[in-house]
C-alpha cells in the first residue's frame, strides 16, 4: 500500500533528522536516537520477512550478532578497515541465512519458528563459548569507530548523523521494494502461496531471498552497533532480543515500513522511562505484545487510525461493518 503524498514523508524525515542534529546538544538523547536507529534497521528487515512475506524468524538476533562480531573481530583483532569488515559481516550473515534458510524455509509456521529459534540459540552459544575468537561471555572490546574521509564517528552526535542517514536510505529502499515486482510477489506468497505459484512465482526461492535480505539488514545494524559501542558481548544477541524484535514489529504494525520506526522507537524509549521496572522488563514486553495483539492487531499506527475512523463513524450515526 503506497502511502499518500509519498515524497513528503521522506522530506519530513530528512528535515526532522537535520533539525535534531542542528539544535539538540545532549549526548544522552543522541545515544538513545542511535539505538532507535539501529533497532529500526533490524525491525524493518524483520518486518519484510515477517510482516510482508509472512515467514517468522525467532532467531534474528543471531544475524545481528554475526554482523557485530564479524565487524568486531576483524577490526579489533585483525586490524581490518571497519567498512571492509562491515561488508565481510554482510557476507557472513548472508551466507549463514542462505545455508539455514534452505532447510528451514521448507517448514511453515511454528516449525519455522522453532528452527530459527534453534539457530539463534546455537549462535548465542558459539559467541559465548568460542572465547579465543569472541572473547567469551565477557565480550570483545577495543573495537574502533567508523570513520569517513578523516572524520571519525566517535561522538553520539556524529554517529547519529551516520546511523540516521543510513536508516533513511534503508527505509526508502524498503518502501521501494514492497511496491515493486518482487515486493508484490513477496506479499502475494504471504496471502496465497498456491495462487502465487500458479502465476509463476517460485515461492521457495523468494522466501530464501527475502530471508537473506532481512539478515543483511540485521548484519548492517550489528556492525553499526559494534562500532557505536566499541564493545560487544553475547548477552546483546540472545533469544530475548529476538523476541523483543518481534514485539517491535507487531507493535509498529505488520507489513508497515513506517510502523517499524514507531515500534522500534517506542520499545527503545519505554525501558528508559520504566527503569524502575527494570527487572520486569520482559514481563512488560510480553504484556504489551498481548495487549497489542488483542486490541490493535494491525499495530499502533493503523490500529489507532482504525479506532479514530470507527469513532468518527459512530459519531455520524453510522455502523461499522466488516
Amino acid at each position, binding site marked *: 500500500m503506497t502511502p499518500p503524498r509519498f515524497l513528503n514523508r521522506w522530506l519530513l524525515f530528512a528535515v526532522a533528522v537535520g533539525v535534531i542534529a542542528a539544535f539538540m546538544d545532549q549526548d544522552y538523547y543522541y545515544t538513545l536516537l542511535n539505538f532507535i536507529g539501529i533497532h529500526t534497521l533490524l525491525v524493518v528487515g524483520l518486518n519484510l520477512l515477517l510482516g510482508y512475506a509472512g515467514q517468522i524468524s525467532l532467531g534474528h538476533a543471531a544475524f545481528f550478532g554475526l554482523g557485530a562480531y564479524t565487524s568486531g573481530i576483524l577490526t579489533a583483532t585483525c586490524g581490518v578497515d571497519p567498512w571492509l569488515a562491515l561488508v565481510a559481516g554482510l557476507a557472513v550473515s548472508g551466507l549463514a541465512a542462505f545455508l539455514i534458510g534452505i532447510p528451514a524455509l521448507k517448514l511453515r509456521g511454528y516449525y519455522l519458528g522453532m528452527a530459527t529459534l534453534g539457530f539463534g540459540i546455537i549462535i548465542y552459544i558459539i559467541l559465548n563459548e568460542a572465547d579465543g575468537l569472541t572473547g567469551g561471555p565477557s565480550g570483545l572490546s577495543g573495537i574502533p569507530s567508523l570513520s569517513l574521509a578523516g572524520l571519525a564517528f566517535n561522538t553520539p552526535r556524529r554517529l547519529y548523523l551516520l546511523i540516521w542517514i543510513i536508516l533513511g536510505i534503508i527505509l526508502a529502499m524498503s518502501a521501494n521494494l514492497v511496491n515493486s515486482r*518482487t515486493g508484490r*510477489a513477496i506479499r502475494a506468497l504471504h496471502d496465497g502461496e498456491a495462487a502465487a505459484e*500458479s502465476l509463476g*512465482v517460485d515461492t521457495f526461492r523468494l522466501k530464501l531471498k527475502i530471508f537473506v535480505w532481512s539478515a543483511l539488514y540485521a548484519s548492517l545494524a550489528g556492525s553499526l552497533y559494534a562500532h557505536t559501542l566499541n564493545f560487544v558481548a553475547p548477552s546483546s544477541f540472545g533469544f530475548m532480543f529476538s523476541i523483543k524484535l518481534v514485539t517491535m514489529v507487531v507493535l509498529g504494525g505488520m507489513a508497515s515500513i513506517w510502523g517499524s520506526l514507531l515500534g522500534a522507537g517506542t520499545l527503545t524509549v519505554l525501558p528508559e522511562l520504566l527503569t524502575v521496572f527494570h527487572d520486569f522488563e520482559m514481563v512488560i514486553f510480553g504484556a504489551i505484545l498481548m495487549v497489542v495483539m488483542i486490541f490493535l492487531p494491525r499495530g499502533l499506527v493503523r490500529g489507532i487510525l482504525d479506532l479514530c475512523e470507527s469513532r468518527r463513524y459512530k459519531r455520524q450515526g453510522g455502523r461499522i461493518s466488516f
Partner: protein
Amino acid sequence: MGLKQENILLALDNVSLAFGGLQAVEQVSFGVAPGAVKAVIGPNGAGKTTLFNLMTGFLTPQAGRIVFAGEEIQGRPAHRIARRGIARTFQLVQLFDHMTVLENVMVGRHRLSHSGLLAGALQFPWTRREEKEIRAKAMEALEFVGLADRARQSAAALPLGLKRMLEIARALASAPTLLLLDEPASGLDAVETERLQDLILELRRQGLTTLLVEHDMGLTMEVADEIAVLNYGKLIADGPPRAIQKNPEVIAAYLGTDWQT
C-alpha cells in the same frame, strides 16, 4: 480417438493418480486443440479438480504423461508450468486479500517481467519503465473484465462475482497460452453467469485456448467446443456437446434425463 500431436496444445496420456486406496484419476487421456474451449464435467468427486492440479503442477501423476506445447510437464513445479504459459483460477477463489485489485493483477505479470529484489529496492530507470508497463498491462486486463474503476480498492472487499472476474483478469494478465478455469460460475447469479459466458466467448474469439471445469450445464453447452466427462476418475465420454448430450452413459452418470432432446 488418436491424439494428433501437431494439432494438440495440451494432451493427457493415460494419467493416473490415487490417494491411498481412492483412485482419483484413472488412465485419463484427452487433448485440447489450440483455440478451442473444452469443458470437463462430471459429478462431485469425479476427479475434475484433481485433474487441474495435475496439469498445473500442484500434484504429480503416478503414471502417464501430460504434454503441453510439445513438452512433458507432469511433475514439474507449479511455477515452472505457469511460466510456460498455463494460467489457472481456483474453485475457491484465491486472491491476494491484502493487496489492491490492481496489485493482484500486477502479480499476474510476474512471469513476463524480470526486476529482482535489488532492482526493486534501488528503482533503476529500467525498473521504473518495466513497472509502468506492468501497470498498463494490468489495467488493460482489468478493463477487459470490467473492473478498471475498482483498481484501487482492496481485493478482499469485492463481492464474490467480481472476485471471480478479478481472478480471471489476474490469469489473463499473464498472457497465457492455455487458460484453466475451475468452476468459474459457482456462486454467481444469473446476470454474472451471463457476463462470464460473454467473457469466455470473447476470449475464444481472440483465439485463447480454454479448459474449464464447470457444473453449470447451460454455460458449458453454450461455450464449449468439446466436452470431456469424468466419472469416478475415469473418462467416460469425450466429444462435441451434442454427442455428449445424447451419450447414454453420460446421461446415466450425470446429466439426468432432462438433457435428452
